[in-house]
């Protein structure tokens, strides 16, 4: 059997290349759509996820096959998260000045997310493991999964909820800020990072350097705070 032209050591095989190209093009189309419609609801992350999700369904392609190519983008999430240190350092004077209000707002937001997430799911009839998966949903996915695991939630469900919460924040943060008359970029950044971690942050980072700095602080600090508090909260909530 002859194998024409294809040499695995030299080129990215066709299927992963297709996945990678499709991801970039779907995202770019989403960016263009948002530019034309001028609404945050046309979010490029949401648009790309829906388009690719439908494409995989229609072509009977497994997520694993898609991820074989898309993982090269996924891998960059690591260095991109580390890169959040730079806007943080550039705004360090503002962060120092706002430190006490920042911590108070962070604790308030963090508790709101954990308690209302668990409480509402429970009140609406969800089982305890499912409601516990709701508790860390506003954290960045790897922390959320770890917390869900440690308190008796369902890690894979929690990952789905964490990403959905991020997308929800990305599409709603502008409208929420407008309707509450929140104009302070520190507040908008901290809220986006606390409620929607990385995907929430990705919406506000290009808008203002202070929003980028506060979203980065929120992502890290909320992760740490909830990771420490969650076992205690879960113990207190166990009987309800």
């Amino acid at each position, binding site marked *: 059997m002859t194998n024409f032209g294809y040499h695995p050591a030299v080129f990215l095989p066709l299927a992963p290349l297709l996945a990678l190209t499709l991801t970039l093009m779907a995202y770019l189309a989403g960016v263009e759509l948002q530019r034309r419609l001028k609404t945050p609801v046309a979010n490029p992350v949401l648009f790309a*996820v829906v388009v690719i999700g439908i494409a995989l369904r229609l072509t009977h392609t497994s997520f694993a096959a898609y*991820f074989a190519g898309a993982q090269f983008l996924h891998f960059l999430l690591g260095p991109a998260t580390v890169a959040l240190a730079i806007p943080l350092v550039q705004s360090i004077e503002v962060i120092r000045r706002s430190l006490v209000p920042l911590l*108070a707002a962070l604790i*308030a937001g963090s508790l709101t997310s954990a308690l*209302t997430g668990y409480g509402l*799911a429970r009140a609406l009839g969800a089982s305890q493991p499912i409601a516990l998966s709701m508790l860390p949903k506003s954290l960045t996915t*790897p922390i959320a999964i770890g917390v869900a695991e440690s308190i008796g939630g369902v890690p894979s469900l929690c990952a789905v909820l964490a*990403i959905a919460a991020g997308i929800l924040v990305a599409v709603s943060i502008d409208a929420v800020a407008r309707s509450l008359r*929140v104009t*302070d970029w520190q507040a908008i950044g901290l809220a986006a990072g606390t409620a929607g971690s990385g995907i929430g942050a990705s919406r506000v980072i290009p808008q203002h350097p202070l929003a980028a700095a506060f979203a980065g602080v929120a992502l890290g600090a909320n992760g740490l705070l909830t990771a420490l508090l969650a076992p205690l909260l879960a113990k207190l909530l166990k009987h309800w």
Partner: protein
Amino acid sequence: MALLQSVATLLLFQLFGELLHTLLHLPLPGPVLGMGLLTVWLLRSKQELNPALARTAEGLLSILGLLFVPAGVGIVANLALIRTAWLPLTVSLVISTLLTLVVTAAVLQGLLKRQQRVRA
């Protein structure tokens, strides 16, 4: 070379973060610890922030949304997971997330305004 040095810096701090996570069993993942370590490193360094590192970070962060797409597609693949309890999950996710946004933003903006009044 400046781009490569910047990328190497980011990867190196991610690696330090991963090591810290693995060795000390810290609850934070490697990249988040790496962000903390790089912050401390840059704040303690006497030199100005390297403009090439700032540019690389800005470039990477400007496409942060794109980097979440593969994981987001994983949601669609795992959508069956929420099928059993989709109504309580969807309703509580939306309300809880919006409340979190409102509380965090309102508390910070309110306290910052108070701080300004006190200092003025």
